């Protein structure tokens, strides 16, 4: 048996790490010619840094209430003004990046593997398995996702965790479709046929030979979806179904600022700018990534 295991190693495709690294460096080279796309990635990188070092960057404690400073307009002391409890909005936005990035990453981590497994299984086995899985995918795809996420979030009780689950439940179908399409191509590759000749079991082929080949495109698709996830999460927060106060979630901040919008515009406007900037950056980055990786979409 050890003999076969060794041969097995020879015909195995290059390790995921190597392939992801190779494609990343290739993309980085191409990216140098795309100033707008570069901007998108730079903004995202800054956001990640802000999220990691939030306590060091924020000038004030995001929860510290100074009622004497309530509803101050933007100034040098308070870059984005203060809210109705005298909390510094800029500091709250900085800490809110953490919640946003956390939501996006959690949804991606849940949705990526689910979509990948469903898609790859459907594409590899084909036939009835494929028909059933893809019909289920189509059905979830034809649901209005925000409404369904609303109903889920309401059923599971409001909170950041349930918002993440609710968004995930409606966000996997595009990933599954993509993974299926990839698997359909890869399953006929020579190295898969070789592995089959060596007597590798279907499950082994599925998870060691086919699924890894689909991972890079799944990651690109996840990036493209992130802007949508941010907007849905913010909508849930705005409706009071996402992260609960006093957590500085951007959507929830807009919702509480809405009460004062006519007299103290900055309370509601500032968090919206943060959402806009973030989803803009994700959209630009996603578009650029797709242009670079998919020659059919290239603008030339």
């Amino acid at each position: 048996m050890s003999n076969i295991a060794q041969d097995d190693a020879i015909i195995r495709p290059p390790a995921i790490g190597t392939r992801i690294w190779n494609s990343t460096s290739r993309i980085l080279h191409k990216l140098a010619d795309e100033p707008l796309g570069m901007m998108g990635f730079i903004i995202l990188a800054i956001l990640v840094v802000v999220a990691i070092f939030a306590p060091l960057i924020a000038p004030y404690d995001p929860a510290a209430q100074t009622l004497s400073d309530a509803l101050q307009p933007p100034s040098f002391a308070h870059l984005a003004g203060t809210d109705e409890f005298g909390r510094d909005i800029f500091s709250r936005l900085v800490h809110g990046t953490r919640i946003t990035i956390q939501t996006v990453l959690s949804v991606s981590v849940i949705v990526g593997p689910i979509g990948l497994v469903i898609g790859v299984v459907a594409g590899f086995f084909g036939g009835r398995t494929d028909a059933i899985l893809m019909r289920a995918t189509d059905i979830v795809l034809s649901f209005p996702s925000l409404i369904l996420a609303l109903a889920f979030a309401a059923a599971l009780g409001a909170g950041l965790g349930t918002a993440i689950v609710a968004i995930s439940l409606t966000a996997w179908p595009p990933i599954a479709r993509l993974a299926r399409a990839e698997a359909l191509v890869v399953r006929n590759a020579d190295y898969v046929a070789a592995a089959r000749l060596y007597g590798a079991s279907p499950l082994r082929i599925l998870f060691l030979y086919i699924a890894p080949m689909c991972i890079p495109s799944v990651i690109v698709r996840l990036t493209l979806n992130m802007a949508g996830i941010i907007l849905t999460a913010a909508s849930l927060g705005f409706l009071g179904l996402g992260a609960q106060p006093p957590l500085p979630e951007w959507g929830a901040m807009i919702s509480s600022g809405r009460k004062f919008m006519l007299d103290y515009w900055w309370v509601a406007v500032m968090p919206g700018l943060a959402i806009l900037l973030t989803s803009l950056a994700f959209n630009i980055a996603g578009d650029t990534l797709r242009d670079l990786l998919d020659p059919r979409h290239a603008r030339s």
Partner: protein
Amino acid sequence: MKELSLGELGRRLLHLIVSLFILLCVTFVIGRVMPTDPVGAIVGELADPKAYEAMRVRLGLDLPLYQQFFVYVWGLLHGDMGTAILTGNAVTKDLSQAFPATLELATLAVLISTLVGVPLGLAAGLFRDSAIDKFARVFALVGHSIPVFWFGIVGLVIFYAGLNLVGGPGRVDVFYEGLIEPTTGLMLVDTLLEGETDIFWNALSHIILPACILAYMAMAYITRMTRAFTLEQLNQDYVIAARAKGVGPVRTVISHVLPNIAVQLITVLAISYGNLLEGAVVTEIVFSWPGIGQYMTNALMIGDMNAILAATIIVGFVFMLLNFVADIAYALLDPRTREAAR
């Protein structure tokens, strides 16, 4: 290009019905796992156990789950979606009042987004890489990224509070409230039917801002798709021949490109319409618009299960129906499939 045979139509219809059935199952399951206690919400927390039990039986919550599901679907088929705790009315009645308000908003929005998005997309495709193309690209990108509820707030601050150009939240000014008998439920149509032009203009000033905000959301998608379709057509031989013959750019678009992309556009518009209904939910909160979205959110706040599920089903149903129509329209209107069917 697939031909729309009777079998194909049947298959899609079956797909629609299966989707609807699953939507019902999902909403039913959501209703059962919901942690809020529907009985407690009616009788109050301090009610005596006998009254509590009696209400539980009255609501049918003592039956086994599959029977409850049966009762639920049976009721739905007869237009009975239970009673809303919030208003005390039958949910069907509440929804029949709320739905036209949402429909009016979404319809106006889809009109606006078509009137702006399609010409912009055509121009962007025709004058590729020109200033207008770049503008369209940025315009669409921002439209994809902007949180619609926030955009509504910004719009209100600028155009209502700041410039006083449009009406504020609600469908009409407070002193016009309740003057119009809802015949169709569409405020703009009803006021004209009754000849109340003052109220018509007032209602228009109220709907125009939320409709534009909502339209922007759809415009991004419509512009992008129109541009892509146009580019595809411009590379076709017949267009190249026409242009070689000396046909100007405007005429190329109007008499050659537009008729050929019309079918694809209809599909895009139907999908946008569905998305707009969904987007209306969040927009309505900002503008205190008495539609499905606001009704649903108010119900969410107090855990009113009947109302939430009914609203989910209605929006889901319309959404799926529009997708279905988009599919059928594509197969039906494409001249190539029409020729084949003859």
